[in-house]
């Protein structure tokens, strides 16, 4: 089976203090499925995505099991991790400016993974980069390809980061707050792009956000995390319309209150 994630009893502890930031969580992702992880600060949602990719910093230790297409990620060697990252699974981060090397031009940023994984050179590489730019709805022009990250807008930088993540045609995309740092109009476009790319390529998605409204429009199933535990899980419709856990209820009620303020002019 390709494009599956199976997390079993994953715990993440702070080395030294032994403090648990993720506490025995289990969940899975089927091929082509879109799953959301909703939680507020300190819920453990971001470190969970790092653990999926074997990207935890040294100060954090994972235990339990994370299998991506059967390959064990917890405790895997760098060599095994490199086989999984990029080809099977890629990640986009919240802050695209931090994810892009400021001294590398956009064309090279996108071209590097294509050259490395697909072995393209010269004009074949150039046209592959142009196709990548077009796919994320960036103008496939010399001006964009030659620009440095700081010369393009925040929304365009996130599109470049998405193009880089997609360069090796991964089966699973991990997106950690991919639109949170963007302006609201740009945010809507980037989310639409992510949804379209997942549909076009049958790509699985693990979508992490604090914003339950954004998650609701992006995934079919979701987990709600609080304090390192999964407090509720289920189809997104059920979580949004009939939450059972007290914390999920509070989260949904807060989001509803903000929506209602747009109509009533009051927070009640």
């Amino acid at each position, binding site marked *: 089976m390709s494009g599956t994630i199976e997390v079993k009893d994953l715990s993440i502890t702070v080395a030294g203090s032994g403090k648990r930031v993720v506490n025995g969580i289990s969940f899975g992702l089927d091929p082509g499925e879109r799953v959301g992880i909703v939680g*507020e*600060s300190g819920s453990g949602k971001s470190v969970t995505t790092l653990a999926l990719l074997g990207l935890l910093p040294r100060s954090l230790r994972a235990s339990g099991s994370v299998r991506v297409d059967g390959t064990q990620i917890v405790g895997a060697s760098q060599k095994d991790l490199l086989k999984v990252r990029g080809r099977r699974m890629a990640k986009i981060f919240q802050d695209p400016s931090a994810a892009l090397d400021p001294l590398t031009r956009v064309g090279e940023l996108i071209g590097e993974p294509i050259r490395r994984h697909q072995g393209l050179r010269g004009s074949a590489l150039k046209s592959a980069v142009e196709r990548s730019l077009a796919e994320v709805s960036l103008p496939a022009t010399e001006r964009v390809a030659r620009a440095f990250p700081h010369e393009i807008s*925040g929304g365009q930088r996130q599109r470049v980061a998405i193009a880089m993540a997609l360069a090796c045609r991964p089966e699973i995309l991990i997106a950690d707050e991919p639109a949170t740092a963007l*302006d*609201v*109009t*740009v*945010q*809507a476009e980037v*989310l639409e792009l992510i949804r379209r790319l997942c549909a076009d390529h049958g790509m699985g998605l693990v979508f992490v956000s*604090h*914003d*339950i*409204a*954004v998650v*609701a*429009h992006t995934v079919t199933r979701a987990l709600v995390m609080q304090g390192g535990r999964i407090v509720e899980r289920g189809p997104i*419709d059920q979580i*949004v*319309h009939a939450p059972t856990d007290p914390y999920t209820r*509070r*989260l*949904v009620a*807060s*989001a*509803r*209150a*903000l*929506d209602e*303020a*747009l*109509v009533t*002019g*009051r*927070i009640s």
Partner: protein
Amino acid sequence: MTAPSLLAFEYVGFTYRGAADPALSRVSFSLPRGESLGIVGESGSGKSTALKLLLALNRPTEGRVLFNGAELNLRDRRQVRELRRTVQPVFQDPYASLDPRMRVDKIVAEPLVSLGLGGTTDQRRARVTAAVREVGLDVDTLARFPHEFSGGQRQRIAIARALVTDPAVLVADESVSALDVTTRIDVIELLARLRRERQLSIVMVSHDMSVVAALCDTTVVLKEGVVIETGATMSLLDDPQEPYTQQLISAIPRLPTASSR
């Protein structure tokens, strides 16, 4: 005759030194006493520049900023001092805006100390205590340091610091955007209560329309330094006239309602 607006912009323009294009041009609005104003825009709209001009941190390169009906002159120390007392800022990031080496009592007292207000040490202490109580924090907060508090509590401390001079206006720069949604509601409720109880004006600079809707009577929509639309907040939300405002409102992610399933 009506009382002059507390704060107003008259055809204000501002160009940063060395910049080719102005960050703001011909921006006008006014803030009547006791009312609240939302300044809404995306990055590059000039909303933070407008905020710096309101706080007298910069001087407009065109037009005038009026304070109590008089043109704001940054060389007039008496006037600037009065503005500093009357118009208090609350910034976006409560982790960055509170000095980590200061205890809360010192942080909250700081505006009184730097403006030479509040009388004797005991009188100041009483005002600090009252401000901390008013934002819903315990008095034992005062002896602790910022890192001991959550984001929402820190933002309350920042609001207490702003209230200690008994201001007429709070200028809030995305003051709730960095907070978790459940905490955000609490802080919005706190600001709404302060508005009501103190007849406090709030100038909310934000990209978040729902926060502005909950707190502000009037809204100014900025884009690339120009006012796109101004109006009563609720009518602007119900019936936006400009395509950009419509786009801004329709892009707000909302929870699906039961009927739209």
